[in-house]
């Protein structure tokens, strides 16, 4: 890589360009390069995946036997609350924002995000609320213990009566996380709408960008409700208001509406980008175009729209009237349709392909199988009479972990492997990757498949102890959970050693189609700089013998020479 590739403007920029000697320091600074921010996000979030996973393993350690004998029940409640909080706000949202930062500008041929400083500010809020949340373990009374739902009145009971307490810090952290996500969402949506390469109409845009666009639109619509709800709850907790406090005439169920109006769509904020990853990975490793590209793209916004009108299905048994149950059951059931369109399209994409079972492909296949399963239990939960029985039991826990871990996190792993060579410039080790996949897939199946039966038999979620008849399911689940802990070892080993000394990656090691693969690995600071390619064809033209951009050979050659 020579400096002649760069615009003089960039050389004068305050941050060092990739390849400059003190290169690693930029990851610890207020850097405005989207690719640096993306790696900052991903590294931070993977660290918190370990923290959240450790909390989960203590939880599963407690649940391996029926009585509450490992930790005090209050500690158990704090641990599972923080497990959920860490996994959502410090792992999943940041890791997806990291992928957005890496992928959106490179996929649409933009030099950077629309608002680079806002982008860096959004990232640097993450360590701020991470320190707040982790610090809350050490204050008198311990961290928040009301579950990640934080339903009042339990969340505002404040047993010690201190002004500063775990719940208050939790609410502040959630509000800060909301602000960070709104910063991010403004950036991503603007970038996608305004900064696409010439010729890249919306229907020539990669699906990852479609789904990220949809997901970030949800953030913009939904997050104000959650952030508002959290602030009202903070006032009830700390300043004696009665928005949700029944003693003062408030309504605890009102909070549930604020919470779920965002927190149901939040699932789609996480799953939509993974749908995008599936579309990228399946086409690349099945060597076929995406089946029904336009339908899959439009289905994303079908899901966005429907996700905003289904939230009451989390409240079928919490004190909502019958008419509301029925109405929201119908809207909930409809969401299976656009999701089904996507699933059928992926299966049709695989059909008759030339499948290469690389690590990212394996993770996506595993994720797709688990997602189909989760979709089926999701429809079951959407029907009122079944939800009344299994709601708030381990059936729900198993279902949403099937979505969030077994589908979303597997998709995230797939993305990390698939784009690792592009953004680090090194290949990962395929053997370690496959070992990671096998341990993860077996572990997550052992962990969450049995818990469906515990739920059907009536084991409530969030319990620290349970009746002995549920023991067998919990023993299997705990073994699976510990296996997932072991699965982290080959992953960390692979990432660290590959980045440090893995073989150099060519610009396009997978023979993939997409603007990001026309860039050198790793891409220079401003991607295509002033030489942005003009897009002429649809993405995913595998086997169609067509160029995606004008003068494709020139860009391929340029990337190789860089």
């Amino acid at each position, binding site marked *: 890589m020579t400096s002649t590739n760069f615009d003089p403007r960039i050389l004068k920029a305050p941050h060092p360009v990739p390849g400059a000697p003190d290169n690693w320091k930029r990851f610890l600074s207020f850097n405005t390069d989207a690719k640096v921010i993306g790696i900052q996000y991903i590294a931070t979030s993977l660290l918190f995946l370990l923290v959240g996973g450790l909390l989960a393993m203590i939880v599963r350690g407690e649940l391996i036997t029926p009585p509450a004998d490992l930790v005090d029940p*209050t500690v158990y409640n704090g641990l599972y609350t923080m497990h959920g909080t860490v996994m959502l706000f410090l792992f999943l949202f940041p890791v997806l924002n990291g992928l957005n930062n890496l992928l959106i500008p490179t996929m649409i041929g933009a030099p950077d995000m629309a608002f680079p400083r806002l982008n860096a500010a959004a990232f640097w809020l993450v360590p701020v609320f991470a320190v707040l949340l982790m610090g809350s373990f050490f204050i008198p009374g311990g961290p928040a213990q009301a579950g990640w739902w934080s*339903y009042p009145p339990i969340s505002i009971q404040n047993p010690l009566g201190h002004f500063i*307490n775990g719940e208050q810090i939790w609410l502040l952290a959630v509000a800060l996380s909301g602000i960070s996500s709104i910063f991010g969402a403004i950036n991503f949506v603007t970038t996608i709408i305004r900064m696409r390469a010439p010729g890249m109409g919306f229907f020539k845009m990669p699906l990852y960008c479609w789904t990220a666009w949809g997901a970030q639109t949800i953030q913009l619509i939904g997050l104000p409700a959650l952030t508002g709800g959290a602030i009202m709850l903070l006032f009830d907790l700390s300043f004696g208001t009665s928005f949700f406090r029944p003693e003062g005439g408030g309504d605890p*169920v009102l909070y549930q509406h604020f919470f779920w109006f965002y927190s149901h769509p939040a699932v789609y904020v996480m799953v939509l980008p993974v749908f995008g990853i599936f579309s990228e990975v399946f086409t690349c490793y099945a060597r*076929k175009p995406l*089946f029904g590209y336009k*339908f899959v793209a439009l289905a994303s916004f079908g899901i966005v729209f429907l996700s905003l009108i289904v939230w009451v299905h989390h409240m079928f048994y919490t004190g909502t009237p019958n008419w509301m149950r029925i109405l929201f059951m119908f809207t909930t059931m409809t969401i299976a349709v656009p999701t089904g369109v996507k699933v059928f399209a992926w299966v049709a994409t695989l059909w*008759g392909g030339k499948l290469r079972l690389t690590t990212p492909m394996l993770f996506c296949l595993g994720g797709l199988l688990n997602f189909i399963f989760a979709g089926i239990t999701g429809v079951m939960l959407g029907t009122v009479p079944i939800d009344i029985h299994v709601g708030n039991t381990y059936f729900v826990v198993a279902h949403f972990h099937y979505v969030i871990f077994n589908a979303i996190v597997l998709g995230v792993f797939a993305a990390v492997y698939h784009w690792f060579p592009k953004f680090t410039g090194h290949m990962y080790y395929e053997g370690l990757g496959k070992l990671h996949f096998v341990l993860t897939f077996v572990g997550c199946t052992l962990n969450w498949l049995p818990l469906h039966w515990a739920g059907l038999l009536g084991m409530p979620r969030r319990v620290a102890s349970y009746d002995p008849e549920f023991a067998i399911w919990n023993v299997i689940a705990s073994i699976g959970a510990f296996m997932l802990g072991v699965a982290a070892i080959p992953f960390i080993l692979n990432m660290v050693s590959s980045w440090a000394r893995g073989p150099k990656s060519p610009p396009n090691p997978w023979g993939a189609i997409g603007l990001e693969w026309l860039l050198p690995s790793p891409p220079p600071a401003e991607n295509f700089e002033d030489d942005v390619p003009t897009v002429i064809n649809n993405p995913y033209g595998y086997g169609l013998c067509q160029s995606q951009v004008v003068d494709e050979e020139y860009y391929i050659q340029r990337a190789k020479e860089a």
Partner: protein
Amino acid sequence: MTTTTNKKGPNIRAIVIISVAVALNLLVAFQMARWSYSWFPPQASSAAPYVDDLFALETGIGSFLWFGLTGVIGWTLLFNRAPKYDESYGEPIEGNNRLEITWTVIPTVIVFAIAIYSMQVNDKLEALGPKHKYAIGSDPVAVAAVDPRATVGPIDVIARQWSWEFIYPDGVRSSELHLPINQRVNFRLISEDVNHSFYVPAFRLKQDIIPGSVISYSLTPTREGRFRLRDAMFSGAYFSNNQTDVIVESPESFSSWLKTTAKKPLQPGLSPGSELYAKRLATGDKGWATVPPAPAPMVNDPGDASIPHDA
């Protein structure tokens, strides 16, 4: 298997394979639906059979979809793998509008059919009555609506951190819920501290109890036995212990229980949280903060937590 695309006339082999696969899948799905009944606790209320039937139907449809889709994916994994060093592409099919319409319309019809059937099942449960708000501290019973079709009750169900108390119309108080079989019972669900949930897995029924509101709730037990009543909405430190038993018995034993219990003096009832909290205080009050448990309710029948439950 892209053999169908360029041939004229029906591809007999493909049709046979697909028909056999669909028939096998139907068989497996049907077996899964039948098997699903064994995944539940016994059916102990009039609602349970409806819920289990609906679940079996959804298990059947879900299994058909699951085995169908995984079968297709498995087929591609077996027969569509690229040999090593094969850099070629699959057949570049970009889509098929007829297929897209099919897999939009058919799932829409299926989910709406399930939703309509669920709506009918929901009507048959007839459990949830009206919810009325009241000011905490005033008498919740004054505002509650009573189910006119219920022959037993209204029984006041009072959930606390962490105990259950059941007050019968004639003033009998109990820590365990005794119910006569095959009679519709009406409850008034009341909480004065935090959210709780009245959940009896054997009845397949669950209703949250919201402080500041009294909710009228009805059900008909249909099987004698001792069933677990579990608090299903997280309620704090000793939430997992906030459980008691529902005893469904013959109308004769129920009325004799009512008579003998009415004569018993009031005594502290089951309060599993209090014991655990006392133990915690005795061992140095370690752990994170919790509110202290509410005092044990004063009841005529304190129940017995050591008797094993049926489900």
